[in-house]
């Protein structure tokens, strides 16, 4: 349990105020040390708090590390990093209000958003030419030139899990899918449909539920298992839904393969089911102390150290968002250093100049014109994580760009069917 009442952030703001005052003083002859502020515009209260707050904690750990080493050297100057948070309550109008404060008051140079409510800030961002990142590329369209997805390209990386499964267990031929009827679930459904079709796996049943809170997962699981699938696919269900369906599958005697976008609560789910039951469960989000994270292709400073520091400070809070926002910062820092500037448009230009940027899991390539209407999503290798002996283990890094070069047409077909293409999203 934490004890301080947001003391760190209160001090941070006060320090920022002092910093502002100091900025007005004449500069002494020493090398310029400056602070660059980064906006963090995501839910920090309410139902979606677990999609935002743990990410801010991750960013703060990353910033502490960077600042402890003196800061970032960009264009001859050294910059300390400071995060300024604003609770957007996952609403469009609060996001707009927050974006204005962050850009006009706090003068941030980059804004990290969860996404999903980007439509509220779109006009303002375009007008201010502010660089904004999202975890959800479904916010993207030809009208969002300044919105980038440098880390999580949900849901396209899910193809890697299916591909790996088909390669390693070719005898599995049928799948049952359950999906949330929302902006996460539907593009994900399209992606899984495409991925299964590419491997010749037949989907035997699809079940939707409206929202996690009111869904009856016991009944849903009964219905899914009644279709006797080889593979039970959980699409991008919310963390709680994944836990409940998995537990139900265990209790209702399911013996087959399971695959899911996330398995945030692997530890707790394993406790509720069994190691044996969880063996071979495939998902897409690794722990950063995984030995495979030590490979050269990883673009993240000391993943294990970061993981250890995080779980020490916030026990039981590690999830995908813990590292995704900092991973975006790594890509941003690289571009800022290349640009020699923290100015948003210069950084964006530097990112896109060569068509590639460092992505947390390898060399990334800017992609998306055909599917998103804009090539602002950074795709690279993505880990296929498999439960082994109760622990998530990276089985292999598989390439999203390779899959796309073979099967983009399938993806477009299924995205169109589910009305998820940019011109279909009104």
């Amino acid at each position, binding site marked *: 349990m934490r004890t301080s009442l947001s003391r760190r952030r209160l001090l941070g703001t006060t320090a920022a105020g002092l910093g502002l005052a100091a900025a007005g003083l004449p500069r002494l002859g020493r090398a310029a040390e400056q602070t660059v502020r980064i906006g963090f515009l995501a839910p920090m209260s309410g139902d979606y708090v677990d999609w935002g707050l743990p990410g801010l904690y991750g960013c703060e750990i990353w910033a502490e590390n960077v600042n402890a080493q003196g800061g970032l050297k960009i264009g001859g100057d050294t910059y300390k990093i400071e995060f300024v948070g604003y609770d957007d309550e996952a609403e469009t109008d609060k996001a707009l209000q927050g974006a204005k404060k962050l850009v006009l008051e706090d003068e941030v140079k980059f804004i990290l958003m969860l996404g999903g409510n980007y439509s509220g800030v779109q006009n303002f961002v375009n007008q201010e030419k502010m660089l904004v990142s999202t975890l959800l590329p479904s916010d993207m369209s030809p009208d969002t030139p300044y919105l980038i997805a440098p880390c999580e390209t949900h849901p396209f990386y899910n193809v890697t899990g299916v591909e790996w499964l088909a390669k390693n267990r070719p005898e599995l031929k049928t799948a049952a899918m359950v999906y949330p009827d929302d902006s996460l679930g539907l593009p994900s459904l399209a992606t899984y449909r495409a991925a299964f079709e590419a491997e010749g796996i037949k989907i035997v049943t699809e079940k939707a539920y409206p929202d996690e809170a009111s869904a009856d997962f016991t009944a849903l699981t009964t219905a899914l298992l009644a279709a006797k699938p080889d593979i039970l696919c959980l699409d991008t269900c919310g963390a709680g839904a994944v836990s409940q369906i998995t537990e139900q599958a265990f209790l209702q005697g399911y013996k087959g393969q399971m695959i899911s976008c996330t398995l945030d609560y692997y530890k707790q789910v394993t406790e*509720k089911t069994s190691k044996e039951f969880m063996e071979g469960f495939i998902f897409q989000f690794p722990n950063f102390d995984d030995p495979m994270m030590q490979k050269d292709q990883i673009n993240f400073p000391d993943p294990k150290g970061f993981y250890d520091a995080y779980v020490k400070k916030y026990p039981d*809070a590690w999830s995908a968002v813990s590292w995704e926002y900092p991973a975006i910062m790594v890509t941003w820092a690289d571009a800022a250093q290349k640009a020699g500037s923290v100015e948003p448009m210069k950084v964006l230009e530097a990112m896109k100049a060569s068509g590639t940027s460092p992505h947390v899991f390898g060399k990334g390539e800017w992609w998306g014109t055909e599917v998103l209407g804009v090539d602002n999503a950074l795709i690279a290798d993505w880990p296929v994580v498999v439960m082994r002996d109760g622990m998530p283990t990276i089985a292999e890094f598989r390439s999203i760009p390779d899959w796309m070069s073979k099967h983009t047409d399938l993806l477009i077909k299924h995205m169109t069917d589910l009305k998820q293409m940019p011109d279909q999203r009104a």
Partner: protein
Amino acid sequence: MLELILQTCVNALVASSFTALVAVGLVLIFGVMGIVNFAHGELYMTGAFAVWYLTSALGWPFLLAVAAAILLVAAIGAVMERLLFRPMRGNPLGGLIMSVGTLFILQVLALELGGGTGRAKHVTPPWRGVIEVFGIEGVTVPVQRLAVIGISVALLGGLWLFLHRTRMGWALRACAQDPEAAALQGISIDRFSLLAMVLGAGLAGAAGAVMAPLLPVEPSMGHSVIVTAFIVIIVGGIGSVEGAVIAAILYTFFDTFVTTFLDGTIASILGLLIMMLVLVIRPTGIMGVREKV
């Protein structure tokens, strides 16, 4: 197919038992005090969090933790009645705001108790086995869920006996059905408001406590419950404990069957429409009484 239908019945039975616990508590509180307790879902959530904390942090055995959680939430109910609702007697809107304020506070406290990151908590079920019912393979009920049914039935049965076999229970029912008439008969509204709140909160806490091993325990888990409970007590008729139980069973069976055989979104929309229909035909619910002049 028969298996699927039977399994769905078993699933529905579990859902209806904990829904009934929550709804009956809400009926008591609304009936006696006239207050729409928006924090009722949070009392349920608090029961679940208490069980999580007591079993995982303090290592208490599950049943003991459930008992303690019920007492704790009942105590919170008592505090709410004395400090928040009693000064609002005759001011139902003030009471509503009090409950909304409590809702916010309990959510943040739960968030903090859970480490401040909004991550869901998991309670490892104390009973792991699965029992076949009707002697058919493929129709199973986990022991943990049987326990939910068992504890719910025991609590509701106890409540029924209390309400129908004791003088105090009779007086409480009189209050719930018609507080004004009850007051005229010399029944102390203060005393029975406190009793209703303690019982209502305790039942909500019990529902949360027994469901804790079956659901992710998180600060927002009360939202869905409160909406379902409101629908149930409306369909059942306000002030009627029996109506709430019958409506809980009808609603959850409907919802579970539609979810299994069609899908969850359709189940939600149809559920709302049917509730509207019930209200259009019987504007005071199945067991409700017509408004007096």
